[in-house]
């Protein structure tokens, strides 16, 4: 008896669970919708999202609404490709590689121009941080991709050191991850387009290429290998825990590190271009830049950020910054990646 009743009830409930339809979300006039990738605002350690929202809401007669999306910028590229409208006003966390991809995939630009000179704080931007020649993206902070290693096991100072040691380097996939890709570019920069594959030949025996960065770092934490390609701000995280600093030494092979800069831009069809402009300018305020650098763990994009004295203790910068132009990447990155894949697979 019970069984029959339950099954009837369950059947009825099932029939009632028809998917609901919803209309597109509408924002009221004074809400600025800023899309970004999840760890920008929701990282387990610290993130600047909450601080930025509180300060923006206070200083302006408006409300900031964060929209964290796992699809990141691809979400919007796809919306544009499918002819679906974009509701967000600003995207925060744009990197140079993203610009390359946008250019390859879309004919009409996704973002509108915001010349640094049009922002009151734009004059304080570091010159070498301006990575968008088309003036759409305003840089907001950066870091470097570098080696992180255990100083009690290895002391790699040059690319050759990495290749000749007996120890293993954990490398997230260069064809699919940021850290891996930037290390590949560093080797191309060092050994040239004709010589870098020879270097990888030498490196082949002591590199383990993993699928993603998370699993690589999990292995590194478990002391499976003494070297990993990661970010130069690694010690900031290490100092927040009790992890021994000896395992979190930052190394720049041949004094080089790849520059990894993030920025924000206004979407082309936003209905609040002035408010968005105010937001971009607000992100460049000295105190905001300082907090963002500390909370998002990076280096400010402006010259006058009000950083605390001891911040630079854990933040390392290389002697030589490696960077490739957008045009060179657009032209060659695909070829380099395929070349590398084939060479690696055939080894």
């Amino acid at each position, binding site marked *: 008896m*019970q069984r029959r009743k339950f099954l009837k009830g369950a059947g009825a409930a099932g029939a009632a669970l028809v998917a609901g339809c919803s209309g597109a979300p509408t924002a009221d006039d004074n809400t600025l919708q800023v899309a970004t990738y999840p760890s920008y605002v929701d990282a387990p350690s610290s993130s600047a999202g909450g601080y930025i*929202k509180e300060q923006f809401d206070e200083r302006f007669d408006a409300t900031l609404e964060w929209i964290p999306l796992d699809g990141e910028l691809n979400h919007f590229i796809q919306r544009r490709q499918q002819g679906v409208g974009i509701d967000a006003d600003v995207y925060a966390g744009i990197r140079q590689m993203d610009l390359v991809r946008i250019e390859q995939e879309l004919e009409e630009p996704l973002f509108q121009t915001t010349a640094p000179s049009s922002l009151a704080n734009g004059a304080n931007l570091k010159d070498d941080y301006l990575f968008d020649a088309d003036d759409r993206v305003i840089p907001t902070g950066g870091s470097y991709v570098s080696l992180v290693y255990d100083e009690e096991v290895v002391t790699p100072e040059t690319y050759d050191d990495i290749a000749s040691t007996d120890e293993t380097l954990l490398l997230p996939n260069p064809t699919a991850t940021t850290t891996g890709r930037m290390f590949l570019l560093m080797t191309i920069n060092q050994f040239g387009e004709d010589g870098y594959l020879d270097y990888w030949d030498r490196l082949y025996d002591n590199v383990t290429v993993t699928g993603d960065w998370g699993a690589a770092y999990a292995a590194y934490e478990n002391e499976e290998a003494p070297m990993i390609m990661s970010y130069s701000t690694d010690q900031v995280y290490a100092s927040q825990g009790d992890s021994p600093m000896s395992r979190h030494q930052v190394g720049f092979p041949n004094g080089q590190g790849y520059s990894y800069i993030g920025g924000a831009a206004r979407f082309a069809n936003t209905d609040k271009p002035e408010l968005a402009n105010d937001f971009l300018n607000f992100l460049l305020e000295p105190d905001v830049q300082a907090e963002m650098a500390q909370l998002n763990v990076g280096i400010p994009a402006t010259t006058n950020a009000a950083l605390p004295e001891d911040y630079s203790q854990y933040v390392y910068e290389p002697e030589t910054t490696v960077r490739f132009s957008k045009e060179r990447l657009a032209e060659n990155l695909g070829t380099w990646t395929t070349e590398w894949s084939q060479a690696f697979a055939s080894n």
Partner: protein
Amino acid sequence: MRNADLTDAAERVVLPALGGFAALLLLVFFYFPVAEVFARAFDEGASFAAVLTDEFYVGFLAHPGEALARFLAFCSAFVRNPLVAEFPDYRLGLFGFTAYQAFLSALASVALGVPMAYVLARFEFPGRETARSLTALPFVMPSIMVAVGFIAAFGNQGFLNGVLTALGLPKVELLYTLKLIILAHAFYNAPLVARITAAAWESIDTRTVETARTLGARPRRAFRDVVLPQLLPSVLTGALLTFVFCFLSFAIVLSLGGLEFRTVEVWVYQAVNDLDYGEAATLAAIETAFSLLLMYAYLRYEARQRAASAVHPPERIPLFGSVTPSRLAAWAVCAVCALVFVLPMFSMVYESLTTPVVGGDAVTLRHYAFLVERQATAYSFQVKPLTAIRNSLLFGAGCLAVAVPIGIVLAVVSTREFRGRKVVDTLAMAPFAVSGIVVGLGLLWGLVFGTEITVPFVGTVRVTVSGALAVVAAHAVGAYPFVTRNVAPMLATLDRSLVESARALGASRARALFDIELPLVASGVLAGAAFAFAISVGEFDSTVILASGTNSYTMPVAIERFTGRRLGPATAMGCVLLAVTGASFVAIDRLGGHFDG
């Protein structure tokens, strides 16, 4: 009288109504999204010819003539001098390797799962019911958690090697080898094989065994000729499901495999991330065709296994007692299970309670404190643990409510005789055979972005579907095949005459189903329900897309959000997931037990 009339009417309508609802759900949440992806991608130019003739993808099959020539050369060399002839070194290609690792994984899962089923079905021990309830637990673990657990348990600096070194034995090197991937696949799938097989084992007719014994057959012969044929369909179901899952495996391979072990799905994932839809769709289409073909072949085999028998389960032996060969075997199985299942999960719990310091690890509750703190102080755009737990449970319950009835109805349909029955059955199993990434992408394009439909008198309207109900529907679509695959083999072996007698006495088809058939296949329904719930709780790809920008995130989404440079928060959330899900399984089983008689 009116009440009875209404009930009669309802009963006549309920099965076809459920069938119609199932069809609608499948259409909106599976076929439409998948079709959208394939259509768009083929628009952009899919290149089957290019893929199927590329050695990278298909290995030696790209040059069949050359492969044949090499084989013939080997044969002639072998004939001349068997000791010297070398078998040609054929490249498997991406598809070949994927099929190869899936085959090994299925083998390993069966090798581990069938002995587990033996212990669960034939032995009595305290906590047996709970152990059976918890068999689906590995299934819910997100791959990053499995990766963390396996690295901590089986890495070169892991627990296992620590113990081996302490005992003076040589280390085993498992990390970034194929062996570890297969072990992880077995971790996920052996419990599935075990549960399905145990359900069947508990439903066999022991009188046939007794008859065989009285006719002079020795125990092993009786087992081989009488019991094994009754178990084989279930074992093969488990093996087939495992093969298909491992064929489409990507997250585990990504986390635990080095570059050389990429599967087709990893390639699809990369192509989608690069917005290269043509390539992604080509590979996904080939994957799907292969999986569906395999399923179709299997279903035809399963259809021929119709053997009418009554349920007369064997008696259970206490696990602890005097040493007998069967008890020794059971204890050995328990030891292996402890190694393969308990060790990684224990490693995960260990990681969540410790933090690395100079000289080792220190115990800390900091990671759990983070969860509490996050719950209390999170902003609205951040993920909160309690919300994730609540959503997971609600969606799981919703998924059960939808997937179990649909799964049962489709199992009934699959046991009916009509032309093209196996084709319909295979199409109903399609959610298993299609790449999860493609389904996710289709849900994004078709449902989240919305579709324009022309409404008369109103014009074109963009209909979008997202949020909680969409998540439940997507989960149900992914979960109902489990129920069907667990119930159908058992339904197929039921005595037809039972149903026929009931119908002859005036019962409607639905009544006969509810009152007679379902109680007899209850253990299959329960197993299916447990896995359906597990699928819902562990689902990530579709959930993360449909819940994007809403508060409908689940525990796996929360774990992914909490994954960072320090593993503590994510592992703590992972342990919460295990605890909550384990408790839910036990609850489901106890609840299901009430309906058993």
